[in-house]
Structure formats: C-alpha cells, structure tokens
C-alpha cells in the first residue's frame, strides 16, 4: 500500500509512451532514491517546460519563444521551407543535420476516414508564407504512406502557381537495406526512381 502521492506519480508516469505501471513503479522508486540529484531537477524542468513552451506562430515548432529559435536564426536559409507532419519529424531532420532552411509543421495529414480535411491542417498559413515571397523551394518531407502522399499532392496543387519549386523526398532503398527483404512496393518505387550513376 503506497501513499496517495506515490500512487498518483506512478499513475501519471504510466501514461507516458513506452511506460507501463510496472516500469512506472521502478521509475518512481529510482526517483525517490535520487531525490536531490534527479527528482527535484526533473520536477523543476517539467514545471519550466509546462509554463514556457509554446507553439511557434510562424512554423508550428515547439519552443519557449515565438518565433522559435529556428525561425529567428539568421544563419538559416530563408528561401527554403521543409514541410513536415509534426514536431517529431522536425527533430528527426534536425538530428540528421541535412537541412538548414525553415520548417512548416502541418499538424497531421489528411485522412479520408477520420474526416481530416485541408482546413484542419496548417496548409493555408503555408500557402500564405510562400505567397508572401522570398521562398524559392518547398520540400514536402511527408511520410511515404497513402495519407502522407495524398497530403503532399494537395499541397502541390495549392502551391502550383506560387512560383516556388515544390519537391518531395525520394522513395526507395533504405541505407543498409537488402533487396531480398524489401517489400514489392519499395522495390518498385526505387526502380522507378533509378538514376544515372
């Protein structure tokens, strides 16, 4: 029988992705044992993040300031926008270090069955950003799924007369992928997108 505070902490932690009640109990025990070194800084950090985090009004990224650090960074290329589904994708692209332009977070993808239409996503603000000028390329970095690519096609249509170049990520062989283990669709997509070497 635990105190209500401990039970409440276990219950809250068990709601996190990847953590069930058993893992939550272990985490809580671990935190209690390291109260000064881990639990207090963690609670402070959680409180800070909860009060300070906001959504960037320009790109939709999560940051403590609006506009976010990426939008304010003068070193970044202001002429290219990479369109992604959510902030997790932005973090993945930033980890890769491959892109140094601006981002635009859509907040989801179109879904025929869930009734998510273009008005439910931030497609209009994206079109306004591009039409405002100064954007030479829009890169659609959306998932290679039916919903992801349907969303990409809709954005392509909306930006058709904007004057900006619209490109999408390639589909095909992953690094380290072996043909024998790939699904037919990926092989077909890779084959169609073959290039001269």
């Amino acid at each position, binding site marked *: 029988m635990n105190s209500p505070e401990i039970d409440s902490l276990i219950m809250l932690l068990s709601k996190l992705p990847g953590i069930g009640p058993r893992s939550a109990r272990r985490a809580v025990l671990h935190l209690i044992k390291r109260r000064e070194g881990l639990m207090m800084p963690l609670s402070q950090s959680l409180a800070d993040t909860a009060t300070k985090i906001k959504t960037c009004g320009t790109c939709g990224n999560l940051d403590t300031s609006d506009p976010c650090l990426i939008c304010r960074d003068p070193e970044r290329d202001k002429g290219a926008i990479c369109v992604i589904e959510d902030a997790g994708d932005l973090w993945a692209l930033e980890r890769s270090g491959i892109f140094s332009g601006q981002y635009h977070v859509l907040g989801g993808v179109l879904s*025929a*069955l869930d009734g998510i239409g273009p008005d439910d996503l931030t497609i209009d603000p994206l079109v306004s950003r591009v039409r405002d000028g100064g954007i030479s390329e829009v890169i659609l970095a959306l998932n290679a799924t039916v919903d992801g690519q349907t969303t990409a096609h809709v954005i392509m249509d909306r930006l058709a007369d904007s004057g900006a170049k619209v490109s999408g990520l390639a589909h095909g062989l992953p690094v380290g992928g072996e043909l024998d283990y790939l*699904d037919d669709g990926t092989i077909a997509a890779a084959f169609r997108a073959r290039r001269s070497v």
Partner: protein
Amino acid sequence: MEWRQSAVILDCRPYGETSTIAHVLTRGHGRYAGLVRGGRGKRLRGILQPGNEIDATWRARLADQLGNLSIEPVKDRAARHLSDQVRLAGLTAVCALVQQTMPEREAHPAIYDALSAVLDSMDETPLWPIGLVQFELGLLQELGYGLDLSACAVTGVVDGLTHVSPNTGRAVSTEVAAPYKERLLPLPQFLNNRAHIPDYEELLSGFRLTGHFLNAHVLGPADKHLPKARDRMLDRLAQADWDKESA
C-alpha cells in the same frame, strides 16, 4: 475461432505504441477488424496501407472478440500509386467508401471481387474510372439500393433511356423525361452499354448519379458523407487527360 483468407486492407488505426487495428475486406467473411501486433513496426507498416492485398489469418478465442490478425503481403498496390495523385485519390476513395458502407462480418463476395478488379485496373488501364463508377453501382445493388436502368419506368421501353429518377432510381426514356428534365439525373450511356467509352462529361454524370444514391440511401441516413478523396479525384481527373486516355 480461426480463418485464413486473402483480404484487401481498407483502413488502419494505431493502437497503443506498437500495434494497429486493421479493417480488411475478405471474400468469405466480409469486412473484418483485427489487431495486428507490431503493425506500427518497420516490417508491417508499409504493408498496412489501404488497397494492399494480404494473406490474412484471424484468430480469437470467441467469435465476437476483436481478434488478432496475422498478415503476409500478397499485392502491394498502394506503393505503386503514391506518386500519381488521381489514382491515389481513387484508391483512397474506394477503400474509404467500402469501409464506410459495408456491414461488418457479412460476406459479400461480389463486392470483394469487384473491389479487387477495380484496384487492379488502376495499374492496368487508363480507363479505370469507368470501372469505379460500375463498382459504385454494384455497391448500391449489393446494399439493397440497386438502380433499375434496364427499362423505362413508365413505358417499359428498353431503348433511348436518358434519365434516372432521383427518388426511385429507375430509368426513364427521353420522351417521358422531357417535361421533368430539370428534376431528373442524366443517365450516361456507358452504364447501359459497356462497349461505349464515355467522354469526360458522361463520366462525371456517372459519378454524380452513383454519388446521389450513395448519399441519399447509404451514407446520409448514417450521418456520413462521400469521402473527400472522391471529390479530389474528380477535381484532378482533368478533361484533357481523360479525352486523351479514352481516345
């Protein structure tokens, strides 16, 4: 309880962090849902796309449980159309329509065969939209709201049928339709004559006809709407392209 059949994936929703609840259409068991363990993982998420054909094994302790679905890929249709927006919208629309309209766990082999045929035709012929209109007519028929396009509802003549009553779904001849033209739906020729290749306007008339009855009898009463992907497909199906392909 266990069965194993070929199935077409209609819809997938994430369940928990690693699994997916997939809705599939089978020939012998109809539309079925099942939990695909690891469905959000690298190996399965590419397969779990609408339109793909799989070899599905469904298992549950009791018949009315959700059940576990094990899948093996058979035909990868979605990936083939990812870069073609008209076909991708068509594939999404037809899968969403079947998911929204077909009752669960009720075998409709004719719908399974027709769905497989229309999805395959997207890869094989530029005239696949004709098959999609025919599929929607067949869907209405199978759901009990079939249209009677064989003879005039008033005179019984079988030739010169040009309109359909929006209430009864029965065809009428040009002479009978004349005074009520504004209130009737045009009947495109290709729905009665399979050899006739429709022009762009006729094709759109076909989609408007099936769309009206799907909305009026199947989707509307259940407070549902035609999939937006269907409108997108019709918007993108440009007249110039259709005229070139149907020539």
